């Protein structure tokens, strides 16, 4: 189950998507996410589906890697879909006790489900094709204009990239501690809820300790290498746009325009 969390895990293959400038991918992900919420017309969703799956194909990341992220939000998905399904008022189809299912409920639930799934797929696609380093660079440069409003962009980007980088490390660490305790006869699977919660103590205590230790070590290592924040810091590989990045922006604009225009479709 722990291995299912793919956020922050880079999948190293060479593809057009991998080569894109991280700013393009960040913007693209944002555009895609927003586009899902500006419309609720069927043709628009067909377009979004086509675009998403086309991009996944282009990225050459195996599909099951991208869908791995879904397992982590399964519970959230089930809850939000059933809330929408049962608690939306409108034309009722049938009712069980106080619960009723309406046409409006079904359509809301489906849209909500699809939106959530696409949201996860799109962000997984971005993190799987962009190294954490590129991601920080992209964020920092893309949001650089905020510096003028005294937003510490560099620091925020650094924090985000460290957080992303720590996810797989913590997963690995959890795995390691879990194994060490399993070797001492621990059982994390069976038992009722309370027993399961109690069984987590031997896992969580060492995990927290190691996370704090790692954080302290990292801070020390950064200081030892004279890290002092963003001011005056230069890049070894500064980002600059290629032709393909410009084309990508163009396609993005066309896509968004189509999605927005679909609002005016008569059905």
């Amino acid at each position: 189950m722990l291995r299912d969390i793919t956020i922050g895990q880079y999948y190293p293959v060479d593809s057009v998507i991998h080569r894109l400038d991280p700013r393009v991918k960040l913007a693209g992900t944002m555009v895609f996410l927003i586009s899902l919420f500006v419309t609720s017309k069927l043709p628009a969703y067909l377009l979004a589906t086509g675009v998403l799956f086309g991009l996944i194909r282009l990225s050459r990341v195996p599909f099951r890697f991208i869908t791995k992220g879904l397992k982590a939000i399964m519970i959230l998905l089930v809850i939000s879909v059933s809330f929408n399904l049962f608690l939306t008022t409108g034309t009722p189809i049938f009712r069980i006790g106080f619960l009723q299912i309406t046409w409006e409920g079904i359509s809301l639930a489906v849209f909500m489900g699809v939106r959530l799934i696409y949201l996860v797929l799109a962000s997984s696609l971005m993190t799987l094709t962009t190294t954490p380093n590129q991601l920080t660079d992209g964020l920092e440069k893309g949001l650089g204009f905020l510096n003028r409003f005294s937003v510490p962009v560099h620091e925020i980007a650094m924090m985000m990239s460290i957080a992303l980088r720590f996810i797989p490390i913590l997963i690995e660490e959890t795995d390691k501690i879990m194994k060490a305790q399993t070797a001492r006869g621990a059982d994390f699977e069976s038992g009722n809820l309370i027993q399961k919660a109690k069984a987590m103590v031997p896992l969580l205590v060492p995990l927290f300790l190691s996370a704090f230790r790692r954080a302290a070590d990292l801070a020390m290592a950064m200081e030892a290498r004279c890290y002092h924040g963003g001011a005056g810091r230069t890049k070894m590989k500064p980002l600059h746009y290629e032709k393909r990045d410009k084309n990508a922006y163009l396609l993005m604009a066309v896509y968004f325009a189509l999605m927005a225009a679909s609002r005016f479709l008569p059905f």
Partner: protein
Amino acid sequence: MSIRCEKLTHIYQQGTVMESYALRDISFEIQDGEFIGLIGHTGSGKSTLIQHLNGLMRPSSGTVYFNGEDIFAQGYDLRKLRGQVGLVFQYPEYQLFEETVLADVKYGPKNMGLSEQEAEERAREALELSGLQPEFYARSPFELSGGQKRRAAIAGVLAMGPQVLILDEPTAGLDPKGRDELLETVSDLHKRRHTTIILVSHSMEDVARYADRIMVLNEGNLQYFDTPRRVFRYFRELEKMGLSAPQITYLMQELRDEGIDVDPSIGTIEEAREEILSLYWSQGGPLAAGADSGTEAGRGLGESSAATGK
């Protein structure tokens, strides 16, 4: 009673571009009461291999038999197996979590279903074996030094009373004295309780001193599995794998190159001393020294025996 691996293969991240073979077709059998040294350079698959022996990892193909039973078969009691095959991980101190050392060591026996009292007895016994002083038993494990933590963690596995004890580089990061003490503890356990030991180590000296047989892993392949002396004969091949024979083996090799008839596969200083002394006496001892042709060789031997005797 034995551990038998049959065509064990493990592939990490199978089916992705990151796919890598950590173990390839490994087959061997370890008898009850043996002391096995497992060596191989970094990334050769040692940690991966030993995690299969108590069922923590599932092989991609092949299987492991413990006392004749397939441990990956349906319905095999893996929890019971983990009590019988104790595994001490590389840097085991991170597994400590309880408020006191004693409580932490009791965790294993309690998981095996022993009563509070039995668990406490086992824990005290294991702590004593591990060589941690009693004044630490009631302390928080996080207040101990690195070496003391290591001992407490090892006691945590010993307390389950395993018939087989697997230690993954137990001496990494310890000072020379701590290292010797720990290895003596392990060797003691082997002698007194006839526990089967599998010791993963980077130090040829340590392995040569204690192991009955040495297992050499190279890029996931089982390259050699034989007595230390026979393995050290391949010191040139070992070097190609990023390993080396014990220093004393090189000394013996050089003596042999000088024309002195010693066994070049010797791996410990004690063996070397005996070999040299017996050669010395067989050539007439001190009386012969200084006389005709044996002079040079005789004196050379006397000196090197004194040197290695230190």
